[in-house]
């Protein structure tokens, strides 16, 4: 081995002895450096440079709050995944072990990731499946919106005094017989609600009646591992409109405010706001969608 060949090998050495073992020929190059002082000096200078540059890069600090944002986003995704798994009845696939597990203080992730095992899947109506899947999608969309788009506002959210309406509505729904479990259609659901004299869901934003001709036809109220999810399916012309209510205590998002944040995602118009400890997501189909 010549000194130039040894330098070429040293040139590949990672700063750090352990990692350097990956480089073939290193032992021979080191032996040569031990015998040639100039080569040894060059190698020392080289190592100093590598160490110094690595330290420079290591001094780059991530923005404050980045880790917390990532953990909060991860918790949101896990929550959505759990909803999907429950709605489809398929088992929830868990993250593989990374060898990096260990005791950790309770955090937003720990709080948000439910500890209680999920309910066993039951026979689910297509309404419920659609609603749950939509919630999962919307949670992800909400996260993306909060991260990517600047906040804007046009009006305030509903008065907190409306919240008892939700509770009252849920109580009324609980007194109804179970909805049809199979073969449902929009007409079937409407007949079921009419036959049972089901109440109209609360309509804090007037979403169900604006534009005219729309009507809230069904509402659900679900406590899911402490995650309160209220959902409506609203007939609006030929399409549907959804309104979701999430418990902000169990599902915190610091960026949501009392003012309505409105945006368009794909073919949907999404409004997000919070009030009285709840996050609201209202989703309408855009006018351009058939």
């Amino acid at each position, binding site marked *: 081995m010549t000194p130039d060949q040894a330098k*070429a090998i040293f040139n590949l050495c990672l700063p750090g002895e352990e990692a350097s073992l990956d480089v073939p020929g290193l032992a021979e190059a080191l032996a040569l450096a031990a015998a040639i002082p100039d080569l040894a000096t060059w190698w020392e200078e080289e190592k100093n440079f590598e160490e110094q540059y690595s330290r420079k890069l290591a001094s780059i600090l991530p923005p404050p709050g980045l880790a917390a944002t990532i953990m909060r986003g991860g918790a949101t995704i896990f929550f959505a995944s759990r909803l999907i798994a429950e709605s489809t009845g398929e088992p929830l696939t868990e993250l593989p072990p*990374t060898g990096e597990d260990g005791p*950790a203080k309770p955090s937003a992730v720990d709080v948000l990731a439910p500890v209680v095992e999920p309910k066993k899947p039951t026979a689910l109506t297509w309404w419920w499946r659609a609603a749950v899947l939509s919630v999962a999608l919307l949670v992800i969309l909400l996260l993306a919106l909060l991260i990517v788009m600047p906040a804007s506002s046009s009006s305030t959210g509903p008065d907190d005094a409306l919240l008892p309406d939700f509770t009252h509505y849920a109580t009324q729904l609980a007194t109804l017989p179970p909805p049809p479990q199979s073969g449902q259609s929009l007409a079937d659901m409407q007949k079921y609600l009419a036959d049972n004299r089901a109440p109209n869901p609360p309509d804090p934003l007037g979403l169900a009646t604006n534009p005219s001709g729309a009507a809230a036809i069904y509402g659900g109220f679900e406590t899911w591992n402490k995650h309160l999810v209220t959902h409506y399916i609203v007939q609006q012309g030929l399409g549907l409109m959804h309104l979701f209510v999430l418990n902000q205590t169990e599902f915190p998002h610091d960026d949501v405010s009392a003012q309505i944040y409105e945006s368009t995602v794909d073919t949907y118009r999404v409004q997000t706001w919070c009030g009285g400890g709840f996050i609201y997501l209202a989703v309408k189909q855009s006018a351009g969608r058939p």
Partner: protein
Amino acid sequence: MSRTQSITFKKLVENHFASLYRFAYCLVNDEQTAGDLTQHTFFLYANKGATLPPGVKVKPWLYGTLHSEFLRQRGAPDPEFPLAPTTAAPIAKPEFIAALDGPSAAAAFAHLDEVLRAPLALYYLRDLTYPEIAEALAVPLENIFARVAEAKLQFKKILAGRTAPS
């Protein structure tokens, strides 16, 4: 998601988010974009981590995913880099290196051939071994050796030709 699972994710973020952010910063030289890339990488893991094939190491996967996302956002394919013999490089002026801060050190990567930036950044970040760098960038190990050697040659020539920032 069980408590164990959430702890797994939390530990993963705690252990790697800073290194991944630095890698992203070396690629894009922009705080906001680097943060977005880092976030997106972890969100992809939250979504797909449970379905990774057995034997896939998480750490190289995170770096590789971040790099792939960087390439995807940039919109151009990663060009092939020919294997070539290498020679020793000049040493940069010590006073120049000493005067650099972290972002300036990362900004120097922008002067490298694009295909060499990721291997050299990973080399200096010291979080991955050579086989892990090869795994992360989906490049044969021998090719990684060649890329790092060439990158260091280019890099030191670039640095040696510059003066200390005032």
